[in-house]
């Protein structure tokens, strides 16, 4: 059976039924949130850019922010028949690509994105079962509906399967 591979671009989020592979290429300071209902094999991925939609005026793109994207993604998965109590999460990304001597808040954006994602998942009672976050390198992630595996590829930092 051929499996459709769907690319999730920056500030996009999507859910899919089995068989499906959701992919994000070159994740940097953004965070890839991967949700899974292992029983129904429904997966969802969000490519989150910013921690919160609240302090931002132009916040019409809900997939851009941790708070609105996670809520939206869970809803979309429930719409496909997922059970909220069964959804678990794997997260990757949130790197600090550039090191500046003066570490201001804008430069710590990777870390802040990860913190926000953790907080939002907790709010929805979704457990994080595995993560590969931080560091100073980019990641390409592939999420498989057949087993919920998340494959993480890097340049010079190996391949990780969580």
């Amino acid at each position: 059976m051929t499996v459709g591979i769907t690319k999730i671009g920056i500030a996009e989020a999507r859910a899919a039924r089995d068989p499906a592979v959701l992919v994000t290429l070159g994740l940097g300071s953004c965070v890839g949130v991967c949700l899974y209902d292992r029983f129904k094999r429904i997966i969802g991925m969000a490519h989150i850019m910013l921690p919160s939609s609240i302090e931002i005026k132009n916040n019409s793109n809900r997939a851009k922010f941790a708070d609105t994207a996670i809520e939206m993604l869970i809803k979309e998965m429930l719409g496909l028949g997922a059970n909220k109590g069964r959804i678990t999460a794997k997260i990757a990304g949130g790197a600090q690509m550039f090191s500046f001597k003066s570490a201001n808040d804008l430069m710590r954006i990777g870390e802040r994105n990860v913190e926000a994602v953790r907080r939002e998942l907790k709010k929805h009672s979704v457990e994080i079962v595995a993560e590969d976050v931080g560091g100073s390198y980019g990641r390409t992630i592939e999420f498989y509906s057949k087993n919920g595996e998340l494959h993480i590829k890097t340049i010079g930092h190996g391949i990780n399967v969580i």
Partner: protein
Amino acid sequence: MTMDYQNMTSMQMDVLKELGNIGAGNAVTALSKMLDKKVNMEVPRVSILEFREVSEILGGAEAEVTGVYFRMEGDISGNIMFLLPVDSSNALLDMLMGTYRDNDKFGEMSLSALEEIGNILTGSYISSLSTMTGMNIKISVPALAIDMAGAVLSVPIIQFGHMGDSVLLIETHFFEGKTHVKGNFLLIPDLESFANLLEKLGVA
């Protein structure tokens, strides 16, 4: 006052192109002096891109690139990035450092040389913009990353993401004859600076 990129006139586009032209022209002259070789450049492109399209300009989100990143402040604020494919970075280092090049792929010497090249070129780019527009523009210290294009570009995109969903890019390519050094300047003015910039250029 905020302004929407989508409503930009072709005249305004042309002026921004010219801005990229002058900035990059000056930078390419600096590079040419450094290498003691002739360096050519193409007419800049001005485009308004959705976030996800930005990383496509360098051969896809997974392509390995060198990025030297600066924050620009002053009369206009925004992000500026000097980008080159990783094989171009290597070629550039070989030309500049010759036998002094460290053995491992990108050792400390190479990284610091690339950062300095980025600094000199971006400095001349910005100083010519500043002279032409009469605006006071300062750039931060450089920061370097060698990684996937998508990851490197995520930094200026996120910064811009506070303001909108698409970015204005002034993109300039340059190349050095046989050795195919290709480089890009990405100038991403903040949304609130954009109207100011057009006004200073007399095309508001």
